[in-house]
């Protein structure tokens, strides 16, 4: 069947409490059976669009609908009822914790069916089908005991049971660790073959979803449609424009661009072809010839057991961080990464072993809200500055300059909670820097950020690193590890499974499996290329590729 599944015409929508519209004069077609990828910087209204297509806006959530219309499957959403709209379009949101409602998997899948008055006799079959579609047959645990990835699959199953004609996935892997991401992407890949269903995907792990994307639509920061076209048009012809908009570009495409081709590799194997064909002979990876600096934090056989826990969260961890290093701590959820960060920072006293610190260590939590102690943005900075013992004048001057540096001058008197995610992250990092630390430990610094903010943050970290500080980043973000980390510490069940350069980690299949990690697409491409052409170095990230090609 051809024709539009959904059509948005001239839509301008403004959220309650905001002056600027979330979506501006937006006109977009979502064709039937199409797999549409929706991109845009943070705050560009992608999630709002998802809620509009589902009918949640305007029927369950109020907003100022200033102009335009949204039509799904032939009916205008404002006229239709939420009941019918919610069975036509299903949305899977990014946070597994706030979209699951029940305690058991079958109850969860049945929830939507119950709401749509599906007769009980028909439910068992639909539940079983949904489980099969998402690979959940045989999973018998209560929801509370499931991993993040499995929870997302349950959410997906719950939506699929409703047999929606349109499926929207709004950043389904954003809150997951690498293992969970793999789980969910695998489940999604199994679904895309069904052309009866139209798919709208909002995702930034583009390399994984590119193979099954039919069309790309891009929203700009103002909520306008900036671009709509095929993946080739998007990432090859208009790549520069999309970059300027702050949108993620597939890593393999960037690699292809660096190699000077117009290709759009769909997976690592295709990229490997390009490398084999186009890698300049004799170009080796650069070696970071930095003199080993004195350690600024040292952990000796450190262990930590949470009160009342059966097993220690950390066991016999020995490592050290030196100035000028950017150490990434990776591992599956529950491997002890955050605990290690907290122990190194001195927030938790080790229950075994010792930690030597040769300077100040500041810790930035994953959720900035947890660390806010003041009612204003400027107040946050002042608290830390005062704790340093600075005089009143100095405090004021430092606050001003820090606010400027973080780009938060205009929001000085705002309540920190009301900032956007990116701004909150900047604020929490800036507050940590206000303490003038020698070591900065960050828990998931790129969590929930778009390309633009991530670049800014990483640039800041680079700056700090060259200033002589040590940076420790606890992260799932393989891109960060590949491109910016000088060293990787991989934890597995509270012990150190690996401590060395990222390249070595990504080279070992066994280590990656043990720590539930994935090889980044570029590393995978180079590995495959190296197998066919031994003079190609085993590079892991874009930064390394750029550095190598620059020679």
């Amino acid at each position, binding site marked *: 069947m051809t024709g539009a599944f959904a059509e948005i015409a001239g839509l301008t929508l403004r959220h309650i409490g905001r002056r600027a519209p979330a979506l501006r004069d937006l006109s977009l077609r979502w064709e039937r059976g199409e797999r549409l990828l929706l991109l845009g910087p943070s705050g560009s209204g992608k999630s709002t669009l998802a809620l509009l297509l589902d009918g949640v806006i305007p029927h369950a959530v109020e907003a100022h609908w200033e102009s335009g219309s949204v039509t799904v499957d032939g009916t205008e959403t404002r006229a239709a009822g*939420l009941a019918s709209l919610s069975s036509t379009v*299903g949305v899977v949101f990014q946070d597994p914790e706030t979209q699951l*409602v029940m305690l058991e998997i079958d109850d969860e899948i049945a*929830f939507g069916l119950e709401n749509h008055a599906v007769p009980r006799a028909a439910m068992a079959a639909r539940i079983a089908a949904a489980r099969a579609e998402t690979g959940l047959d045989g999973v018998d645990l209560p929801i509370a005991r499931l991993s993040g990835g499995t929870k997302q699959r349950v959410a997906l199953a719950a939506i699929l049971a409703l047999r929606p004609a349109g499926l929207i996935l709004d950043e389904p892997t954003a809150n997951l660790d690498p293992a969970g991401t793999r789980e969910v992407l695998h489940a999604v890949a199994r679904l895309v073959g069904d052309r009866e269903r139209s798919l709208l995907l909002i995702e930034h792990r583009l390399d994984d979803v590119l193979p099954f994307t039919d069309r790309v639509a891009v929203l700009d920061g103002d909520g306008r449609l900036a671009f709509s076209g095929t993946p080739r048009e998007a990432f090859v012809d208009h790549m520069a424009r999309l970059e300027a908009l702050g949108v993620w570009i597939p890593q393999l495409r960037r690699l292809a661009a660096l190699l000077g081709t117009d290709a759009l590799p769909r997976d690592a194997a295709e990229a490997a072809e390009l490398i084999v064909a186009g890698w300049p002979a004799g170009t080796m990876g650069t070696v970071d010839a930095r003199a080993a600096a004195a350690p600024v934090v040292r952990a000796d056989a450190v262990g930590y057991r949470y009160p009342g826990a059966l097993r220690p969260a950390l066991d016999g961890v020995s490592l050290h961080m030196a100035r000028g290093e950017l150490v990434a701590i990776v591992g599956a959820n529950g491997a002890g990464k955050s605990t290690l960060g907290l122990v190194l920072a001195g927030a938790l006293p080790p229950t075994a072993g010792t930690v030597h610190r040769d300077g100040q260590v500041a810790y930035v939590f994953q959720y900035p809200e947890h660390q806010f102690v003041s009612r204003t943005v400027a107040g946050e900075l002042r608290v830390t500055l005062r704790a340093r013992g600075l005089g009143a004048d100095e405090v004021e001057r430092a606050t001003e300059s820090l606010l400027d540096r973080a780009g938060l001058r205009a929001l000085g008197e705002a309540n920190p909670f009301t900032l956007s995610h990116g701004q909150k992250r900047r604020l929490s990092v800036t507050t940590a820097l206000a303490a003038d630390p020698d070591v900065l430990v960050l828990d998931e610094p790129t969590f929930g950020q778009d390309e633009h903010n991530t670049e800014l943050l990483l640039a800041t970290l680079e700056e700090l690193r060259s200033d002589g500080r040590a940076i420790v980043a606890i992260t799932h973000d393989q891109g960060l590890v590949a491109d910016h980390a000088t060293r990787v510490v991989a934890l597995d069940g509270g012990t150190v499974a690996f401590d060395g350069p990222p390249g070595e980690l990504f080279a070992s299949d066994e280590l990656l499996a043990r720590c539930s990690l994935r090889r980044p697409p570029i590393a995978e491409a180079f590995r495959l290329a190296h197998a066919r052409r031994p003079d190609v170095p085993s590079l892991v990230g874009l930064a390394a590729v750029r550095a190598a090609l620059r020679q």
Partner: protein
Amino acid sequence: MRRSRLSLLVARRDPAVKLGVALLLSLVLVLVIDPVTPLLFIAAASIAAVALGGLSAGAFARTLLPLAVVALGFVWTNAVFAVPAPDDTVWRVGPFAASASGLRFGVGIGLRGLAIGAVSLAAVRTSDPTRLVVSLIRNARLSYRIGYAVLAAYRFFPIVGEEYARIRLAQRVRGVRPTSVRARAAAAVGGIVPLFADATRRATRIAVAMDARGFASARERTYWRATPVTAGDWLFALSCLLVAAAILGAGLAGGWLRLWNGRFSA
């Protein structure tokens, strides 16, 4: 661990019926003021919960422990502060005199609280929460919007404690290290606001997720969970009431039963 049919007798009963019975018995107990009757109720409830309901005796006792301490408080207060009959004083410490009748009354009230708690625990802890809520919705005409809202929120109970600990840790790392009692109290309170802010945000998102699956607009609703109230459930309810009546009857016959005599005074 295999459990015999008998040991799960109570656990398999419909939770709404159990809750109803518990409520009824609690209301009856509210009128009782002697110490022996509640003790018998506690015994009956313990049997129902542990031997017939599958709960572990240790867990049951541990949950009742706080109430036991509270009961001590009642004993103490009433012993000393209840209005005594003349020449009833049992011992005297300074200006405080404890009376026998006050003591008896205090013990009675304390045990009564324990009995109400035990009955409630026996009903709730032997029931699956989902089944309880769905049964209340289907059998007790509880609004499904309230019932499922509670079920959705129930998942967060263990998370709240962890979240609060994380917030306090995060604030301590920021340098908020209170030393004085006042500062400690202020810090404790300061940790509450992010907790609530987080909770309310979660609430909004969960509500959106629920509505996105057609929750609010559900005119008619079907149910996946079968929650029949069987003859066995009625039989169970009847037996509980009979046991309660027997306990009260025994109290009447044995002379130890004391009910609230309709007076609002001592």
